């Protein structure tokens, strides 16, 4: 007998078509390829329109700050002549405390324009706060569905804080236990309410992030005479990398290297009830970063507008302990007390700046708010309560879920390169696996896969040939 979940999932296409306010079928070109730029521009808003919408929503135009003390700290142990200038875009200055306001503002604008009575988003992250805040300003009803607790009803303090802030902005918050069926429950709610699905992965949301890349390119040009040589982006579902990179290109910053960064949570299962509270980062980690980069269309929309592999020039991972250390250092040295998840890119940037010449410029493109629950002390206390060993030492000995090792010296902050070749291969394998069995990719498919993996036709053809050999 089909279960309740099967019944609602069978109606997924019909429910999402109404809830997303657009039909994704018109962009499909083959079992593999679709018109990505067509999807991204179908909403009809120019970059200037989006800037105008965000200004009226109180979003964006956050301070870009040079971090001279952190720069000198890196130079104190870098080789002579090395140690890039480090900058940060203080996105915590947005109304709900993160860059996610940019994402939410466009979805809320669309919901209002199209006459939806409310919005629904499935998120345990800062996006919930952003959607709730923007919905409150627009006078729309708002439901946030969160994966909040393990089966003991124990919740990460960071997620509990995010429940609190959504309720502070007047949202109805559903706090679920661990499990991917959260999505089918969201479908039921969309069906019941008729609200807009304010997906993290819609073209509206990702277009909203383009202003972040655009702003920072212009601000860096005003400050240093040129766009940054490197931008480091905390990476999870891919929207941050995608939107920022697209915005940089729109500002003409085509030479800027896009470096994505995630906290290494390898070995922890994201759908496991027992692993759920053994991690100290609820986003910005490899548990989302790798699967979403290598198969973006696993998202809650038919085609994901966030396609990070298209834009990444490099992918760095850092350990939890390194990020907590850098969070403390940023607070003490720069007067910026910000949330640890958003500082993932900062930890990677300190490692990157060390290997770059002193005239290079590295921009960390976001921060997030902190406070009770989200603060790094709260995270470390919670980790200890869950039986995780927390100690000072060499972070190279970190084992996610077992220990958190706080560096003893800044020299020990060493980001690791996650090989992009492995990600591209994995992406192509996933794309082929989702096409009908025996489907032979056309030249147009190869071209699409090359663009979607930031490589070329030759590379894609070689991967396909290698996969065929097994």
């Amino acid at each position, binding site marked *: 007998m089909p*279960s*309740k*979940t099967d019944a609602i999932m069978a109606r997924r296409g019909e429910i999402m078509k109404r809830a997303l306010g657009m039909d994704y079928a018109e962009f499909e070109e083959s079992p593999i390829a679709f018109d990505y730029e067509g999807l991204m521009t179908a909403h009809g808003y120019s970059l200037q329109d989006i800037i105008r919408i965000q200004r009226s929503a109180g979003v964006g135009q956050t301070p870009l700050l040079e971090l001279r*003390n952190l720069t*000198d*700290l890196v*130079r*104190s142990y870098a080789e002579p002549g090395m140690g890039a200038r480090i900058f940060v875009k203080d996105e915590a200055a947005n109304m709900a405390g993160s860059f996610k306001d940019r994402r939410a503002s466009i979805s809320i604008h669309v919901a209002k324009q199209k006459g939806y009575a*409310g919005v629904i988003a499935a998120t345990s992250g800062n996006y919930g706060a952003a959607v709730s805040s923007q919905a409150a300003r627009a006078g729309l*009803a*708002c*439901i946030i569905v969160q994966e*909040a*607790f393990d*089966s003991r*009803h124990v919740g990460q*303090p960071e997620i*509990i*804080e995010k429940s*609190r802030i959504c*309720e502070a902005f*007047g*949202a*109805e*918050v*559903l*706090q*679920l*236990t*661990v*499990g*991917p*069926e959260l999505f089918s*429950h969201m479908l039921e709610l969309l069906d019941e*309410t008729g609200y807009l699905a304010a997906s993290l992965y819609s073209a509206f949301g990702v277009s909203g992030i383009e202003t972040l890349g655009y702003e920072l390119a212009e601000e860096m040009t005003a400050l240093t005479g040129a766009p940054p040589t490197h931008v480091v982006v905390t990476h999870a579902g891919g929207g941050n990398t995608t939107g920022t990179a697209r915005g940089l290109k729109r500002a003409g910053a085509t030479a800027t290297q896009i470096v994505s960064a995630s906290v290494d949570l390898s070995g922890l*299962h994201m*759908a*496991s*009830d*027992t692993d759920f509270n053994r991690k100290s980062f609820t986003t910005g980690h490899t548990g989302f970063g790798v699967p979403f980069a290598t198969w973006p269309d696993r998202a809650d929309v038919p085609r994901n507008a966030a396609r990070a592999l298209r834009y990444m020039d490099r992918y760095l991972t850092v350990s939890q302990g390194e990020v*907590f*250390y850098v969070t*403390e*250092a940023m*607070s*003490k*040295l720069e007067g910026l007390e910000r949330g640890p998840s958003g500082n993932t890119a900062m930890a990677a940037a300190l490692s990157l700046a060390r290997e770059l010449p002193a005239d290079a410029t590295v921009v960390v493109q976001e921060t997030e708010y902190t406070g*009770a*629950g989200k*603060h*790094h*002390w*709260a995270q*470390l*206390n919670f980790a200890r309560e869950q039986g995780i060993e*927390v*100690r*000072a030492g060499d972070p190279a000995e970190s084992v996610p879920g077992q220990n958190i090792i*706080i560096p003893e010296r*800044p020299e020990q902050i060493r980001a690791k390169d996650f090989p992009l070749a492995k990600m591209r291969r994995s992406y192509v394998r996933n794309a082929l696996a989702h096409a009908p069995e025996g489907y032979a990719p056309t030249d147009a498919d190869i071209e699409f896969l090359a663009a979607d993996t930031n490589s070329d036709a030759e590379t894609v053809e070689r991967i396909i040939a290698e996969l065929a050999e097994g």
Partner: protein
Amino acid sequence: MASSDGCRTGDWVEIERVLLEPAERSSNLPEDTAAQPLRVWLKGFARGDARIGDEVDIETMTGRVVRGVLTDVNPGYTHTFGRPAPELTAVGRDLRARIDAYRADADAKAGE
């Protein structure tokens, strides 16, 4: 009036519901998750008097009416900062000293 063991109509309360029993859950879950029901907690205004552990209807912030077991009345939040991690308390002092030493050294070299 709200009390520690129950609610009156109109009180702001929290309820719990089971969305899926273990047998109804998705087939591709890790064993530890599959053995547990999928549960949800949500808040709203009570539509009747009830004791903790009783079923009650609530009206949520979006106006939906949802039935569940009453788990809390006037529910709040208790998450904190907690005590500092001893591994981090000296980071500010030590790194400021390093930066000062680096700058003093750079100034000395510039003056040579």
